[in-house]
């Protein structure tokens, strides 16, 4: 007790700084590596002298890789913190925007947006947000009531919502015959290759205020984990907090989906690893998930770029390949 005085603020700052360092490292590697070699040297030269000799490589790094790494970080941060929030509010360690079908809902919206030829921002964003709100309402209806089966039925209903969303997506795709088909398919699997600086800026503008809002609610989330009844007696307005957090999270996720497509399981992997590492205090987990999730995604995106010998693969493939087995392990663990 005396040895481990829980000065949470100090710990939060220390952990956040460590993760920030980690993120900076991952971003640097993400900038340096790719199909064109020599990135490390070029970045070093850029840092030392402020300019580089190889202007082609320089353009690749700053105009192609930089926005991409930035968007990857934002995607990772959003999906991780989204998973964390869903897990806290639904009190289900397996909840995650992708598994619950929130991402699927916004994907339907986004595809409709693409098909009727809207611009990525704000047109597709708005339709995607509406789509995800519909699935959110569906989930809330299904998880309300006092059934003891809530936990399992929530995941099952998520699977069903997801299956339904996939069917609708396939239906929409089968109606499409032209050049948009390839775009949609690649986007569906989670695509960061078309990221540009404008996209990164818009995402930052939308997401940063949400991150701050969520952080302000982090101690309230701790109280929610002790049960709704106890939280009420601690002065928490459950309805207001739950709705605010869910709507904000859904907004963030739909923003990500409409820009970058379906990237799954990130919201499962990062919060769980971080919880194992750091405990359950959300005042620490929220910043750690934002920074750690960014790092994870930057690395996943790097893998998606460098693993295939030719071209690249959608980053959603990588996250699913890592995330799905972890989900199964967790499912087995929570059942016993």
């Amino acid at each position, binding site marked *: *007790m005396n040895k481990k*005085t829980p000065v949470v603020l100090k710990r939060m700052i220390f952990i956040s700084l460590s993760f920030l360092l980690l993120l900076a490292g991952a971003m640097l590697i993400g900038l340096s590596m790719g199909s064109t070699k020599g990135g490390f040297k070029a970045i070093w030269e850029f840092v030392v002298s402020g300019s580089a000799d190889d202007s082609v490589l320089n353009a690749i790094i700053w105009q192609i890789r930089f926005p991409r790494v930035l968007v990857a970080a934002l995607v990772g941060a959003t999906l991780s913190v989204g998973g964390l929030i869903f897990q806290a509010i639904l009190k289900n360690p397996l909840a995650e925007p992708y598994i619950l079908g929130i991402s699927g809902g916004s994907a339907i919206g986004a595809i409709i947006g693409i098909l009727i030829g809207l611009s990525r921002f704000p047109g597709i964003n708005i339709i995607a947000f509406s789509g995800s709100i519909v699935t959110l309402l569906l989930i809330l209806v299904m998880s309300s009531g006092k059934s003891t089966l809530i936990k399992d039925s929530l995941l099952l209903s998520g699977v069903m919502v997801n299956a339904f969303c996939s069917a609708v997506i396939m239906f929409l795709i089968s109606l499409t015959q032209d050049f948009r088909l390839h775009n949609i398919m690649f986007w569906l699997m989670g695509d960061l290759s078309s990221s540009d600086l404008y996209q990164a800026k818009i995402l930052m503008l939308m997401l940063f205020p949400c991150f701050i809002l969520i952080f302000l609610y*982090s101690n309230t989330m*701790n*109280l929610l984990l002790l049960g709704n*009844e106890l939280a009420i*007696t601690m002065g928490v*307005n459950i309805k207001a907090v739950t709705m605010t957090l869910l709507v904000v999270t859904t907004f963030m996720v739909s923003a990500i989906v409409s820009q970058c497509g379906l990237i799954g399981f990130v919201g499962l992997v990062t919060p769980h690893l971080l919880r194992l590492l750091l405990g359950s*205090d959300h005042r620490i987990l929220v910043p750690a998930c934002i920074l750690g999730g960014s790092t994870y995604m930057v690395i996943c995106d790097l893998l998606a770029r460098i693993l295939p010998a030719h071209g690249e693969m959608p980053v959603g493939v990588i996250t699913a390949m890592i995330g799905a087995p972890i989900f199964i392990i967790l499912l087995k663990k929570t059942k016993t």
Partner: protein
Amino acid sequence: MTIAIDVKKLNFSYKTMPVIDNISFCVKKGEFFVIIGPNGSGKTTLMKTISGIEKFKKGKMNILNKSVKKYSKRMLAKKIAFVPQTVPIDFPFTVTEMVLTGRAPYLGIFGFEGKKDIKIAKDAIAFTEIEHIADRKLNQLSGGERQRAFIARAICQKPQIILLDEPTASLDLAHQIKVMDLMEKLKIEKGITVVMVSHDLNLASMYGDTILLLKKGKIKSIGCPKEVITYDILKKTYNCELYLDTSPMGKFPRITLIPGKYSR
């Protein structure tokens, strides 16, 4: 003698079914108040109404001489602490972390505790004698240890009234007595008003200053243990035969159940 909780003509119903039916009573400041009654008598609902979890529509309730409707949620949380019967432990905090959550109503917008809050939490942990498990996770504790940890959390909230929902249910004998002694100590040393829902009439009789007997949402009897725990009242309320004498430990009534004798 000042009044801690003053309830007047309180009504509560789930949809159309009345659970609490027009009841009035008051809890004196600094007393050990036990609510007893058969299953479905509305004990827990009454407790949840007092704690603010359930909102009542008809009737009046004053907490520390002020209408409960005039309190903000945060203000009320500084006056009343609640110890639930069970708590989800899917996301296990350590005992210290969980006890510290009791400071939440006192924290600023960012929700970080200061040195003073940590001292209060340490004191609460010492008071409940759980220092040895302070760094353990909640899911690694026994039922009795967990219950004391949650009482420590309630103490950490620095309330004037503590509400407990069947704190001794499913505890072994030693832990039952430890929890009850702890509540007694809280009453005597800190002057906190203790309100407890219990199924254990013997414990209620042993520790309670005032006992409230509920049946079907109405007050059957209220008073000191000797007045409430009588053969006639209990037999009518619980519909079973029992044997009543005085405990060899002191002057409070003792109940012994008799096998095979109950109606319906």
